[in-house]
Each structure stands twice: as C-alpha cells, then as structure tokens.
C-alpha cells in the first residue's frame, strides 16, 4: 500500500496556510483557492470551503460581502484577532517542530 505522505502533511497545515494568506489581505474564495491549488496545498475549491467554514465557526476568520467595480458582489474572508493569535502560536511551534523532525528523520544520503 502506498501512503501519500504529502497529503497527510498538507492536512495538518492547510488551515494555517489559509490563515497566513488572510493575514496579508482579505481574500475571496476563488483567490484563496487559486493560491492554494498553485501551491499544491489543496486539490480543488471543494477542499477550501469546508476549511473556511471551520475557521469561521472557530472565530478565526470572518466573511463580508463587497461589491467590486467591474465584477459581482464577492464574499471576502478576513482574519479575526483570534485568527491572528492562532497563526502566531502556530509560527512559534512550526520552526522547532520542523527542526525536531529534521533531526529525527535526517537527510537523504543517497
């Protein structure tokens, strides 16, 4: 049986990637989806919306409608203060975590 290690890793961090993107600026669904698909973090927009729903339920992100000059009214998502705190907590953990894994796993010598 082949284990998709990448998929398991992505599942653990994709929510924080969304928080990271939203920290930069409020974004609408397609914008987020494009960035995450290009980065290989999600397979489709179908993965994104359950994540956004969870982030909103947890109070880490919020949504609002905004009309664009040329296009339709879009639902934008932005980070809440709780989301910012969660992202900062993740950043504190991420460096030491990856360093530890790197120490344990080591480098490929082949």
């Amino acid at each position, binding site marked *: 049986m082949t284990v998709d290690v990448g998929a398991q890793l992505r599942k653990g961090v994709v929510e924080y990637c969304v928080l990271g993107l939203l920290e930069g600026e409020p974004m609408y669904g397609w914008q987020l989806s494009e960035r995450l698909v290009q980065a290989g973090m999600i397979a489709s927009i179908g993965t994104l919306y359950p994540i956004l*729903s969870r982030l909103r339920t947890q109070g880490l992100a919020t949504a609002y409608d905004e009309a664009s000059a040329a296009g339709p009214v879009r639902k934008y998502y932005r980070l809440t203060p709780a989301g910012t705190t969660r992202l900062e907590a993740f950043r504190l*953990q991420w460096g030491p975590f990856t360093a530890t894994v790197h120490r344990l796993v080591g480098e490929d010598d082949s």
Partner: protein
Amino acid sequence: MTDTTPKNVTAYLAELENELDGVAPEVRNDIVAGVREELLGLDAAAAHARISELGDPAFIAAEARTEAGTGMDEASVERESAPGRASSIAAVVVLVAGSIVVPFVGAIVGLVWVSSARAWTRREKATAWFAPIVIAVLVFALSLLLASLQTTGSHVAVLVGYLVFPIEGVVLAVRARHRGWRVCA
C-alpha cells in the same frame, strides 16, 4: 428581464448543486455561491475556461465531503494538543501562591513542579531556576551597598526578592497561555 447567463454556466452550477447533495448545507451553499460569483458576468468562452480550471463538479463535491469529514472541532484540538495542561496550570499556581504563603519552600516546590510540566521549553525551565539566583545576588549586592551608604531601604531590596517568584510564575503562565498550553518539552 432576460437571463444572459451562458448555458454552460447554468448547467455547471446545476450539476455542482446536484453533486453536493448530502454535504452540509452551509458548506454546500458557500461552494455554490463562491463558484457562482466567479462565473457570473463571464461570456460563454471565458466561462468555459474558468469551468475547466474549477474542474469536475463530482470531484469538487468528493473533496468537500472528504475535507468536511476530517476537520477537528476547537474542543478536540485543545484536548489533543494540550496534554498535561491541568498539571502545568497547577504548577504556576503553586509557584505564585506557594512562594507567597510559604516563602522559599513554596517557590522551590513550584519550580520543581514547573520543571516536570510539559508546557515550557528546557530553556524556560532553566531560566526559571537561574533568574531568581541572579536576582538574589543583585539584591544582596544592592543591600550591602545601601547599608554601606547608611541609607534606609535595604529591607525594601530584600522584599523585592520575594516578588521574583510570583512574577516569574505570571510570566510563565502568560507564555504558556499564548501557546495554548501546548506541549513544549
């Protein structure tokens, strides 16, 4: 008013809604609304290109089902990420309260407990032990200096020593709380 929405957009949205049957209503509505706002206003050719990027509605629905089933609620995140949380909180309470109620002995008990707790890094634990020693030396030196200058206040300097442990406990609690009392050691 005539509906100018290209047929391929109407058909795609209908198929997407159909495929999303069984997905949580809120998620389903968000997906359909998000895709609709992306497709509305495009002509048939542009919509065709965007639909190709979006992919098969059945695949989107399958991804949504998978993702919706894998999310952890807030409570379970907290439960799984903070083992020993109660013990860590108790450790700082003992450090703060113990050092006030039973000076020195209470602080030592608190520090030992903090050292065995999992909410702090090795460096934080080492600092918790060494900081009071460094401050004690400085306070002692200050006391000698004030005494040699025959200035009142040497007793106040000693009192400062008693505040070190409660302050240390508060700092440790704030740091651990900032990380959600997650395991660091």
